[in-house]
C-alpha cells in the first residue's frame, strides 16, 4: 500500500481546517505580537544586552526575543492541535486515523508534520508583521530558519501528543497552560539569556539549561542568523525522538488512552 497519499491528505486537511479557523489564526498571531510590541518595548529600558552569539553587535531587547516568540507560536500550536485531537470533536478523526491500515507511527508523524507546517505559516506571518514594525532579521535567516522551525515544531507537537495520551488530568487547556506552557516558556532562554538567569539564581539557570524548549529556541535563534548551533540541534533532535516515542507508546492499543475514552 502506498504511504504518500496519507501524508498529502493529512497535511492538506490540516491546512483546510486552519483556513476555516480564522479566529485561531488571529489569536495565535496576536499573542506573540503583544509580547513583542508591548512587553519587549517596556523591558528594553530595564534590560541591557551585551554582545552574545549569534549576534555580532549590540541588539535591542525586541530583537532578542523574536526567536523565543517564534518558538512560543510553535509551543501553543503544538499543544492546541494535539490536545484538540483528544478532547473535543477531533476524537472522531483520531479513530479514523487509528483504524487505517497504515502503520501508526507513520500516521502520527503525518499528523505532526501537518500541524508543524501550519504553525510555521503562523511564525512567518508573525515575522512579517514584526518586520513591518522594523524588527528584522538577516535576509537569508528567513530561509535558513525553516528547518529549525520544522524540527522545533515536530518536537513540541510530539510533546503535546504524548501528553494527550499519557496524562489524563490535563482535561482542559488551562491545565496545560499552567503546568506545561508557562513553565516551559518562562524557564527557558526565550525571554532572557541564560547568563542573565545565572546572575540571579544558579538553580534557575540549571533548570533553564536542561529545558528542551531552551534548546529549540537557541536552535532557531542561531538558524535565523545563518548559523547552526550543534549542541542545540542535538538536544532538540533527542527530545523529538523521546517525545515521539512516548506519543507512540501512548497510542499503542495494548496500553493506550483509547481504552479509557472509547
Amino acid at each position: 500500500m502506498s504511504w504518500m497519499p496519507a501524508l498529502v491528505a493529512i497535511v492538506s486537511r490540516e491546512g483546510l481546517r486552519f483556513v476555516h479557523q480564522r479566529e485561531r489564526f488571529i489569536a495565535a498571531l496576536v499573542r506573540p505580537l503583544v509580547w513583542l510590541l508591548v512587553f519587549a518595548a517596556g523591558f528594553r529600558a530595564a534590560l541591557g544586552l551585551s554582545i552574545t552569539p549569534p549576534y555580532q553587535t549590540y541588539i535591542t531587547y525586541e530583537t532578542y526575543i523574536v526567536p523565543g516568540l517564534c518558538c512560543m507560536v510553535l509551543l501553543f500550536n503544538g499543544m492546541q492541535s494535539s490536545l484538540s485531537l483528544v478532547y473535543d470533536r477531533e476524537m472522531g478523526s483520531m479513530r479514523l486515523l487509528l483504524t487505517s491500515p497504515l502503520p501508526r507511527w507513520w500516521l502520527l508523524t503525518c499528523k505532526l508534520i501537518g500541524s508543524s507546517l501550519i504553525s510555521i505559516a503562523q511564525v512567518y506571518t508573525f515575522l512579517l508583521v514584526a518586520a513591518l514594525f522594523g524588527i528584522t532579521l538577516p535576509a537569508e535567516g528567513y530561509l535558513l530558519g525553516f528547518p529549525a522551525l520544522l524540527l522545533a515544531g515536530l518536537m513540541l507537537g510530539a510533546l503535546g501528543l504524548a501528553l494527550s495520551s499519557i496524562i489524563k488530568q490535563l482535561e482542559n487547556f488551562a491545565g496545560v497552560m499552567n503546568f506545561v506552557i508557562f513553565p516551559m516558556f518562562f524557564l527557558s532562554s526565550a525571554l532572557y539569556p541564560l547568563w542573565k538567569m545565572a546572575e540571579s539564581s544558579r538553580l534557575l539557570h540549571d533548570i533553564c539549561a536542561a529545558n528542551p524548549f531552551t534548546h529549540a529556541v537557541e536552535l532557531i535563534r542561531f538558524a535565523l542568523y545563518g548559523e547552526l548551533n550543534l549542541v542545540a540541534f542535538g538536544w532538540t533532535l533527542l527530545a523529538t525522538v523521546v517525545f515521539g516515542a512516548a506519543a507512540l507508546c501512548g497510542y499503542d492499543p495494548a496500553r493506550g488512552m483509547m481504552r479509557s475514552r472509547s
Partner: protein
Amino acid sequence: MKGVSFTLAPGFSALLGPNGAGKSTLFALLTRLFTAPGADIQIAGHDLNKTPRKALAALGVVFQQSTLDLDLTVRQNLKYFAALHGLRGADAAARIDAALDRLDIADRAGEKVRKLNGGHRRRTEIARVLLHDPQVLLLDEPTVGLDAASRAAITHYVHALAQDGMTVLWATHLTDEIEEDDYLLILHQGEFIAEGRTGDVAVERSLKEHFLSVTGGDTP
C-alpha cells in the same frame, strides 16, 4: 467480556444488546482501538494482533459517533479517507463516484457535511466505508438520532449490501432493525445469551418481547 466467542459468515449479523451490554467495548476490540490480553480476533482470515494492518485493510467501520469533518465537503471527506487507505488519483475518484451513486448522494458531493441532515451524513459515512472494498463491515448503532424514514432506509441499504456477499455486523438496541433471516447475537452484561437465526431465537413471540424478557430491561 466473559468467554465471548463468535464466527460470522457473509451476510447480515445483528449484535443486539441493551445500552451498557458491552457492544462498544466489543467494537473497540474489533477495530483495535485497544487490545486485551487473551483476545484472539481474526478478520477475513487475518489475525488482528499478528498482522493488524492486513486485518484493518479488510475492515470497514462506521462508529456510533460521526467521524466526518463538518467543514469539508462530502467529496473531500471521502477523498481523505481514500488516502488513508492508500488510494489516490483516478482510481480514488472512480471509487468515490461509484460509492456516492450507490448511496444516492452524488448530487450532494460538493456540499459541506455541516449542511447535510443526519440521514445524509450517515449515508456519506457508509459510502465512505465502501471505498476500499472491505470484506467485513462493522456498524455501531448507525441509526442513532435518525428519523424513522432515514433509519429504515439505512437499515434496508445495509441489508442489501449483506445480500451482495459482504459480512456485516450491525450493533443495535432496536429490535425492529433486525430481519427474520438475520443472524442474531444477543449480548447482555458482557456475555452472549442467545445466538442463531433470528426466526429461530424468537420462536413463539416477537423478537422485541423475547429480547425484553431475556435481558429483563424495559427499554424497547
